[in-house]
């Protein structure tokens, strides 16, 4: 019950991320609907735009009340709040307009029995401008309460840039997951194949984004160490729950990806697998909500309530115990070895699939090499798990290494790019002796370069 907001500030923190981050995901679905020319998906997106427009109202009301409360706090800058209010109200007004246009088009199309391209593009344009304004409003909003972002970098154990990135990035898997679940449940109810695939893709993307979110979170822990008013025990409580979230994301992401891979070969979904993904997703969302709440408690004293007992022992929980265990050579060396095997599987698979796409071994149809992709995906799972354990062993050193951040960025890019191999219709129809389309060759090059960069970035950590 402690997850239910009991103050305007708490409610504003929760509701305000949906219009902004949610808009990015709905725009992604909308672009997919245009690419697939799927009428049901376009209509679902118009409904989502209308819902986002409606969410602008509680966002404004809670923000206004929150301002009244926070203006009494001498630590909060009035100028920052006024700037945030200005950008916020402009972006919300435009979002309401976007939602209203989407709603009018839905109403009009019921009478005309078809959607108008002009109106659909108008909604797209309005949504893009709203998003740009919301990015500015969000940035000015985060600065209000996160004083640590303005600390002197020379006094920090890791750069505050990590905290800044974590504050932004953590909302993508969380809000994305909510939207994925909404689209996925709608797809199951409507029995729409394109929407089911879109939902599964979004689950996989959220799972991949869980990796940089967890890593930036670990880096933020060091950036916040020693900052007055921030409890290490509260950070550890959040970190423990983040660990469970990472496992939940991995289970949901891998089962969703396997279903996409299987669909490619069989041309149909297995209902049992689809409901298994749904079950994993619902459990993960519950764990994620608790993780988010614990994360919010670290830096937002205004959301704490009397019944919320904050942890006080910085050594309690799973994370400090794993830290201590993995520092024993008998645990570290085996998992480090698993990490090397994982890279061998990932790079071997990426090399075979990418080289076929680039024009090698044309005697094989693409569908034959597509069969080995699960080996690479299992390699990714092995490395996320073993990499997380290795990070536990000496996180401060790894996170301060020059090549660590590019390595994590390339993992995200490389993993998302691999999704293309199981989604592209044109690539799937490449028969023996045929050349892959140019767009597929670009993606194959990105996959190869990203994973080569990941390995080089990892090896250079100890030396650069």
């Amino acid at each position, binding site marked *: 019950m402690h997850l239910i907001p009991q103050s305007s500030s708490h409610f504003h923190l929760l509701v305000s991320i949906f219009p902004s981050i949610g808009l990015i995901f709905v725009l992604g679905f909308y672009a997919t609907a245009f690419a697939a020319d799927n009428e049901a998906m376009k209509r679902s997106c118009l409904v989502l735009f209308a819902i986002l427009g409606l969410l602008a109202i509680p966002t404004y009301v809670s923000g206004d009340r929150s301002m009244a409360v926070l203006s009494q706090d001498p630590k909060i800058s009035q100028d920052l709040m006024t700037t945030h209010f200005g950008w916020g109200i402009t972006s919300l007004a435009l979002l309401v307009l976007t939602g209203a246009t989407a709603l009018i088009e839905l109403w009009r199309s019921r009478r005309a029995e078809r959607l108008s391209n002009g109106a659909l593009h108008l909604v797209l344009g309005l949504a893009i401008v709203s998003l740009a304004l919301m990015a500015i409003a969000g940035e000015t909003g985060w600065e209000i309460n996160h004083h640590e972002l303005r600390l002197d970098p020379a006094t920090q154990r890791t750069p505050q840039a990590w905290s800044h990135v974590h504050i932004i990035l953590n909302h993508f898997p969380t809000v994305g997951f909510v939207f994925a679940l909404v689209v996925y449940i709608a797809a199951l109810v409507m029995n729409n194949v394109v929407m089911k695939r879109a939902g599964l893709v979004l689950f996989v993307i959220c799972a991949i984004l869980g990796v940089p979110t967890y890593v930036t979170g670990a880096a933020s822990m060091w950036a916040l160490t020693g900052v007055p008013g921030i409890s290490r025990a509260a950070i550890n409580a959040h970190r423990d729950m983040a660990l469970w979230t990472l496992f939940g994301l991995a289970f949901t992401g891998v089962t969703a990806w396997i279903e996409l891979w299987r669909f490619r070969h*069989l041309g149909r979904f297995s209902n049992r697998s689809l409901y298994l993904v749904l079950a994993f997703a619902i459990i993960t969302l519950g764990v994620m909500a608790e993780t988010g709440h614990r994360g919010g408690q670290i830096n937002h004293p205004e959301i704490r309530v009397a019944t919320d007992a904050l942890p006080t022992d910085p050594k309690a929980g799973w994370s400090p115990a794993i830290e201590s265990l993995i520092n*024993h*050579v*008998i*645990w570290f*060396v085996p998992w480090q070895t*698993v990490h090397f095997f994982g890279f061998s599987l990932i790079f071997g698979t990426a090399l075979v699939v990418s080289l076929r796409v680039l024009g090698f071994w044309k005697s094989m*149809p693409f569908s034959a090499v597509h*069969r080995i992709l*699960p080996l690479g995906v299992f390699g990714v799972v092995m490395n996320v798990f073993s990499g997380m354990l290795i990070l536990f062993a000496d996180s401060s050193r790894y996170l301060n290494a020059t090549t660590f951040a590019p390595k994590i960025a390339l993992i995200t890019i490389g993993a998302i790019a691999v999704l293309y191999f199981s989604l592209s219709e044109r690539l799937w129809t490449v028969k023996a002796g045929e050349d892959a389309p140019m767009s597929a060759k670009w993606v194959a090059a990105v996959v190869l370069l990203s994973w080569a960069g990941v390995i080089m970035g990892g090896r250079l950590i100890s030396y650069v």
Partner: protein
Amino acid sequence: MEYGNTAIVFMVVAVVSCVLGLSFFGVYYLNKIVDQNAPEGGSVRKT
């Protein structure tokens, strides 16, 4: 606690065997499911 070299080598072989074994079995099992349920002519497109 100090560990002998034999114990470390044993742990490396045990952990790697378990993890790789699970991965290879997973790939074998997924491909088997595809083979059993594939449309007539198999899921690999012919020339």
